């Protein structure tokens, strides 16, 4: 017995180390419930979302309270900061244009701290403080928690950046201003097949991220529908450092494109090792690529890669130009992430609905949001009428170019032009 003692200590230690490893992680923006197999499309559809039964909040006096929940601390802070600044600019713009006669709009800020539990409690605090509606969060996992509380209380939510298909299924008072993963997978599949002429694409999926798994599935489905072939799919995990094994396998399948549905911290190094492994492919991806850091981590190999995004600073639409001008005045420079524009849009849609609202309570506000049609937002025109909370709006295909160019917009794809 004595002789085994050190080994059992060692094994316990191994188990402990495993727990430690499982317990901490870096940015895991979109850990959500399992992605659904057959999500309804963004456009139309009549899936029955449950109606909230509670009445929600009512405005008292001349102050209309709106809440925002974003990560002001933690891993996702860059996204949260951008979204909050965007929302505040939208509020200023609304007041400059006259606001709502005789009423003052107050913005209450909640910090989700980059984690789902805190997002939920921040939302509950705002609801008990009497907000008519909530904006947030930037990620799917947090938004789902916010949506659960808001559904119970009957307060409408407009999410900023939650792309997971399941988010708006929580209830009929949950909306968003971004597109959904099913749509961006389809956009990239069409772009890869038609504009890039790719036929044999390989997938690299981060199996720890529901976002990545869902996006890969959507891309696979639509690319195969078009007649393309998925020659192989390999898996990795967030924080993994070597990918040569997977890439050597894919090299043998001789793909002409590589779809990387994960987040930029892994995508950059994977693209770099893919080039070293002899893969001559066009790298493709989703909005998880949206950080300038990918240019550094991917180096020369990521140049020429294309991904799907919500918004681009180089867009020439008047709304974008106005937004950039206001951003320069208030924050300075240009926004670092797409969440700035989406934060602005979420706030703008909320305020527009508030203005049209029959009376100042959560129920009327929900109805007014539901009636949003062709709202000219920064990231594209938004329609929420009869769409189950998922806006019909365009997606941008963006190409990665060397600095100082950075991300260059290649094509804006409208939902009505797709799937033909």
């Amino acid at each position, binding site marked *: 017995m004595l002789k085994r003692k050190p080994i059992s200590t060692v094994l316990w230690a191994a188990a402990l180390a495993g727990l430690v490893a499982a317990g901490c992680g870096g940015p895991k923006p979109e850990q959500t419930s399992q992605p659904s197999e057959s999500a309804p499309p963004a456009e139309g559809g009549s899936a029955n979302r449950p109606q909230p039964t509670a009445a929600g909040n009512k405005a008292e006096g001349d102050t209309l309270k709106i809440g925002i929940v974003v990560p002001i601390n933690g891993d996702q802070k860059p996204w949260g900061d951008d979204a909050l600044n965007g929302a505040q600019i939208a509020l200023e713009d609304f007041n400059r244009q006259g606001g709502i006669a005789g009423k003052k709009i107050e913005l209450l800020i909640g910090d989700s701290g980059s984690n789902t539990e805190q997002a939920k409690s921040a939302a509950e605090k705002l609801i008990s403080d009497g907000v008519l509606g909530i904006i947030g969060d930037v990620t799917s996992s947090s938004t789902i928690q916010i949506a659960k509380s808001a559904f119970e209380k009957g307060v409408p939510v407009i999410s900023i950046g939650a792309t997971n298909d399941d988010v708006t299924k929580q209830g009929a008072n949950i909306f968003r201003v971004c597109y959904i993963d099913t749509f961006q997978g389809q956009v990239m599949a069409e772009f890869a097949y038609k504009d890039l002429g790719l036929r*044999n694409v390989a997938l690299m999926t981060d199996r720890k991220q529901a976002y990545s798994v869902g996006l890969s599935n959507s891309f696979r489905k639509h690319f195969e529908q078009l007649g393309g072939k998925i020659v192989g799919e390999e898996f990795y995990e967030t924080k993994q450092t070597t990918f040569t094994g997977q890439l050597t396998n894919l090299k043998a399948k001789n793909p002409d494109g590589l779809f990387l549905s994960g987040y930029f911290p892994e995508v950059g190094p994977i693209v770099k090792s893919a080039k070293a492994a002899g893969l001559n492919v066009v790298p493709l991806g989703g909005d998880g690529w949206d950080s300038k*850091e990918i240019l550094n981590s991917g180096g020369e190999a990521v140049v020429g890669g294309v991904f799907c995004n919500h918004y681009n600073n180089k867009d020439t639409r008047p709304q974008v130009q106005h937004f950039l001008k206001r951003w320069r005045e208030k924050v300075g420079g240009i926004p670092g992430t797409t969440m700035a524009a989406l934060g602005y849009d979420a706030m703008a849609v909320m305020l527009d609905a508030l203005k049209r609202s029959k009376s100042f309570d959560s129920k009327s506000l929900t109805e007014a949001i539901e009636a949003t049609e062709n709202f000219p937002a920064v990231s594209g025109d938004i329609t929420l009428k009869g769409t189950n909370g998922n806006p019909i709006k365009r997606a941008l295909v963006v190409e990665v170019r060397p600095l100082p160019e950075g991300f260059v917009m290649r094509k804006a794809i409208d939902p009505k032009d797709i799937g033909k």
Partner: protein
Amino acid sequence: MAHAAGLSLLASLDFGTLPSQVVNGVLNGAIYALIALGYTMVYGVLRLINFAHGEVYMLGAYTALFVSWAYGFRPDVPPDQLPESTLLTLLVMMLASMAVCAGVGVVIERFAYRPMRNQARISSLITAIGVSLLLQYGGGLFLPQNPPPTMNERVNPYRQTLELTLVRAPQELTTAVENARQLAQRSEAAFQERLKLEKDRFNLSPEGERLRDAKFEAERQLREAESRRNTAQVTVRVGAGRLAILVASLALMFLLRQLVLFTPTGRAMRAVSQDFDSAALMGVNVDRIVTITFVIGSALAGAGAMMTATFLGTSISPYYGVLPGVKAFVAAVLGGIGNIPGAVLGGILMGVAETLVIWAGYSQFADAVAFVVLIVVLLFRPGGLLGSSAVEKV
């Protein structure tokens, strides 16, 4: 049934990539081995599992990153304004990482482990976990992590890929590739010519689209031909940077071996690991030996961290050391913890096992295999592959 399933699995394997994958595995394993040495040396001398070792590794990666920034390889600099990197740059980075890690290792030993040395072993173990968490979350307060930074690839002057063809393809397949390539080049040229007349290359005129599709078709034929040729030949492809990792790791391991076997310090180290108290009675300065052990183990982790950060270019965060730390620890146990050649063997074995699982098409289980191998080995050899199963005085 089992027979048929076995056959279908066999049929799905691609033996052409096997040599490549074994090489990949050895290269990955060299890094595990380098980190595992730190665990095994500390365990050998102190009977303590230094859980903070992965965090020392993380600090090594940050040090290398900061040195590269000091050299001017900052992420916001356009590629044409970056300085040239040389072997000297890499050496300075490596030495800086090794020095910082050695310092951190000594501080941890002096202030966290030494006060616990005469306490029950479980106290030291818990202290080690505490130090590990302190460095992870404390590091989160001071170290840049938003967004997770990565080393600029230009820091690495060896970016080319080396190829070694083991079995050549028949001549006619190679000629077919050449013919297809010429056709692809011609249609590419025609398309480029047309592109000069087009306004936007993503919204082409019908003629432009025709030439584009012709170009794509020619490229697909080229790929097809290449694919046929590649299946017929067996090639091993290695990035020069990864080869540099292997060479440097082997050199460091050789130095360590010489030090342990042929110097008075090495002899004292072996004596302490055999019997702590008797070594002290024989005039060995035990505290000094323990400090040296931490210096060497931590410096090796620093070297490993600098190399992974530079040559593999994955993003660095305060949790950078967690996964490599756990894997290297498993490698150390696998080889027989406390045994230096065992750590190297365990590391390489794990690297190869993981890559072979990926090769067989089960990349989703690659991380689990390390632990399966560990359990299997410990069932048959409780002391690890090269570990001693001698009765221990407790």
